[in-house]
């Protein structure tokens, strides 16, 4: 029986394992040094906040693994000998594989700041990181202030976590506006205001110079590069992005760049070795995507695709339309298609913001053909299937606006904003688009 070994029990590795099991009877071993069981990394914040217990983040009950003959091995892989097809663990154990899937995810970036390895300085990625936050910032008497460095999705989640325990937070963001490398100006500004409304000391356009240590080797303050200001703190969160967690491959002959280099079949340069998820770097990324995508969904999709290949049904990783979502404190965010921070040459953006300052949308479309290219929504839920279809069918922006009601996914009785949105578009573009009523028929033509 062929033995498939998967390093990493995150969403990518586990999805691959589940689908290989569906398609075959191969022997499957999943290796992890982080936890005994698969859990949802995106939910770590909710454990600290007390919304859930850690076991609630585990999507499968503990008997699931044995029942589906998915062997779980806890251990840290230090070296891979691809000639002998053998993994060497830190405790001198070994494991022989027939096919190997590397799904080791990411690690938080550290840019060589002085003091970045002190106690009480950490990212928020792993379960161990969660335990670290609990240890160094359990409450506002032990942690009188926390500083977060880096303004991305993890940064704002960490800010929300800490403020849920009333710990004062200073949030250092390198960009001139929150996440404005990704979000158009209107949205980014709305989030700046939202963050400040939550009593976060948001510092825009600010870089970290160094982290100072007390006598015991614990972080006691940070120095700001631009002003030299020193901010006393007991906890420093480093959330300036993540990069592939592949240091253990350095000594192997698996080719790496920033991540593990893979072709469109998720194969590495070594036969029978594959890489998926955050740690994989596509050599030929498709439709505008980045070579490395540290996103939950893409990891899941790669796992599904690779399972097909491994079970004799060779398949290229061909992700469909880009989509993503996040939550910034109380504001949910969804995106479908491509909405760039600033429109490309042939593009135009249409932006609508509600006067309560917690809801807005931005639509991107082609200036010349009026083809709809993508949407960002904040504080309004919309249907994935509908936007996927509109993007596939290359619908025009006026068609999308006309049928916007079909796409609304907010709970029943919520206020609807289609009229407002469309009338703003009409007044800006001298058009006369009339929004249509929601139609189940149209919605169900799209759903799968």
């Amino acid at each position, binding site marked *: 029986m062929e033995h498939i070994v998967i390093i990493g029990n995150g969403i990518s590795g586990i999805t691959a394992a589940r689908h290989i099991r569906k398609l075959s009877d191969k022997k499957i071993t999943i290796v992890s040094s982080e936890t005994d069981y698969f859990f949802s990394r*995106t939910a770590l914040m909710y454990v600290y906040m007390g*919304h859930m217990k850690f076991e*609630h983040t585990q999507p499968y009950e503990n008997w699931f693994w044995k029942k589906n003959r998915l062997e779980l091995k806890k251990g840290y892989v230090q070296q891979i000998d691809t000639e002998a097809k053998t993994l060497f663990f830190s405790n001198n154990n070994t494991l022989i594989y027939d096919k190997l899937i590397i799904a080791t995810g990411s690690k938080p970036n550290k840019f060589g700041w002085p003091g970045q390895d002190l106690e009480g300085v950490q990212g928020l990625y792993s379960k161990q990181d969660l335990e670290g936050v609990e240890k160094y910032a359990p409450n506002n008497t032990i942690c009188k202030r926390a500083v977060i460095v880096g303004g991305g999705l993890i940064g704002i989640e960490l800010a929300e976590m800490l403020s849920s325990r009333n710990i004062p937070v200073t949030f250092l963001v390198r960009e001139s506006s929150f996440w404005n490398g990704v979000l158009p100006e209107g949205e980014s500004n709305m989030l700046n205001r939202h963050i400040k409304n939550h009593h976060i000391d948001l510092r825009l356009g600010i870089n970290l110079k160094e982290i100072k240590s007390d006598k015991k080797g614990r972080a006691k303050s940070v120095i700001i590069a631009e002003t030299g200001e020193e901010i006393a703190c007991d906890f420093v969160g480093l959330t300036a992005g993540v990069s592939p967690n592949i240091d253990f491959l350095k000594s192997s002959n698996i080719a790496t760049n920033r991540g593990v280099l893979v072709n469109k079949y998720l194969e590495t340069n070594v036969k029978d070795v594959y890489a998926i998820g955050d740690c994989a770097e596509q050599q030929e990324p498709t439709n505008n995507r980045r070579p490395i995508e540290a996103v939950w969904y893409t990891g*899941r999709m790669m796992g599904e695709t690779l399972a097909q290949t491994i079970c004799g049904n060779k398949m290229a990783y061909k992700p469909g339309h880009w989509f993503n979502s996040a939550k910034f404190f*109380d504001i949910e965010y969804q995106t479908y298609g491509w909405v760039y921070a600033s429109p490309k040459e042939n593009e135009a953006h249409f932006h609508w913001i509600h006067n309560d300052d917690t809801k807005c949308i931005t639509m991107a479309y082609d200036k010349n053909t009026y083809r709809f290219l993508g949407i960002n929504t904040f504080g309004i839920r919309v249907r*994935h299937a509908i936007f996927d279809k509109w993007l596939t069918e290359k619908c025009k922006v006026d068609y999308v606006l006309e049928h916007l009601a079909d796409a609304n*996914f907010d709970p029943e009785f919520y206020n609807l904003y289609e009229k407002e949105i469309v009338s703003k578009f009409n007044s800006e573009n001298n058009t006369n688009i009339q929004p249509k009523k929601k139609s*189940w028929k149209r919605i*169900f033509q799209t759903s799968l």
Partner: protein
Amino acid sequence: MKTIKNIGLVIFLVGLAIFTFTIFTGSFSLNESEFNAFINAKDYKSEIIHDELKKAVVTDEDLNIFEFSSRVRKAYKTSNDYYDGLIAKYDSEKNWDKKGEQFQYKIYGKPHTLSYEIAKKAGSGFVKDNAGMVWWLTFGLAILGALLFILPNFILLGSKGIKNDGIYHESSTNRGWIAWLVLVYLVAFYLLLYFFPDYVVVWTYILDPISKFLNGGPASQWFVYGFLYCTIMLVMAIRMYIKYRHNKYQIIRTTSVLFFQIVFAFLIPEIMTSLNMPGYDFKNAFPLDYDFFFEWNLEALRNSGAIGLFILVWGIVLTLIIVPVMVYFFGKRWYCSWVCGCGGLAETLGDPYRQHSDKSLKAWKLERWIIHAVLVFSLLMTVVTLYCYFSGTQSFLGINSQWIKDTYSFLIGAWFAGVIGTGFYPIFGNRVWCRFGCPLAAYLGLVQRFKSRFRITTNGGQCISCGNCSTYCEQGIDVRAYAQKGENIIRSSCVGCGICSAVCPRGVLKLENGPEKGRINPTEILLGNDLDLMTLVNRKNEA
């Protein structure tokens, strides 16, 4: 703000403590004329009970309720034992005529209920004399304290949105000692209410004035329960309004369930009683209303003229037509989380405990066996009852009608729905009864599963498996298991409370009533992939 909350908590506990303490107050006895009035009204055939009871209750002693109850029960027992002795004697002598004669002298009824009836008339003391003032010291203080505890949340919770911060850090919402204490108090309350009503007769004195105003008569223990129920729901609904103030669905749903409890379950029956009609809760559908077809109810309805007939027809139409048709259009939520009184308490008082429902596969298997067994039990009981009612026999299919009614009332009506159903909120979640026990829910669930427009739609591939939905599902549905596969949630147990959709941080879930076609979509992931892969993946069965 925190201080206000703490002051509120103290005031609430003082009110609750006084309320609890009143049980031990009051003095119980009847004078000669009161006793004669009681015994004449009762029309007992027993020759012994008159003297025995008189010895027990006509006294100058200052008896508390426990001593009084014990004396009364003993009097009844003495009388019944005497005739039981005679029955046994004539039985051994094979004197069947004499034996048969004795049965008319026996006094039927639960000892504590018999004792309650006398106690209700026999009490005197501070509470009875100052009902208004004591109401303010108990209900008044508890309501004021609870509101002081709840209202600051408007500020403390911060901006609008889901704020479940600290739920698993607090003893009261994380099965800590406070939760166990609440469980013990609730269980004790239900045990007293159902099985020892005489011990809490003093509570009825507090509400006598309100009862007289509403229905013209003094308060019974059921009036106390109904009034408490409405009060608790009202106060805890205010908590819901604050907690979910960003969510219109929750606000409207809470208002609906509150309206139906206060108006339909409480006020209308009280007013009907005051008009000499049978008090009837028009929204309480059989088989949740399990005694609708009991002889005493059918007799009462037959003797109430047009209104009685209307109620009889309404009750049947409600169960057979209105309920399933509404479930077809809206799902069982229209009843369970918009109308039902049990659901109403679960969604208000029970909301802080919703996360404790067991999500394991085992629990789901157990749930399906138990709830359908209760449904079958209730239907069997009704068939037996109706057969015996129309044929005038004692039993059907070898099942004694009185026995099965008593068994069901005791096991399901009292223990399951009350003591366990509500008492266990703090540890086992707020819908133990609705999920495992309610026969109406089982019936609605069958309709919802196989013939309904309702579903919880999963939004394509946006699920991140975080687990908030499953954690906060009060019915123990592992919502995430469906959402992460991109499947709609079609489960017979879903009561459509909408909290999974509310707590989802990615906007993945929506309760809707759409066309039946495509309602069940057993897909494996998902959007974002190209279609060839999805076709392949969906051809296989779940691992």
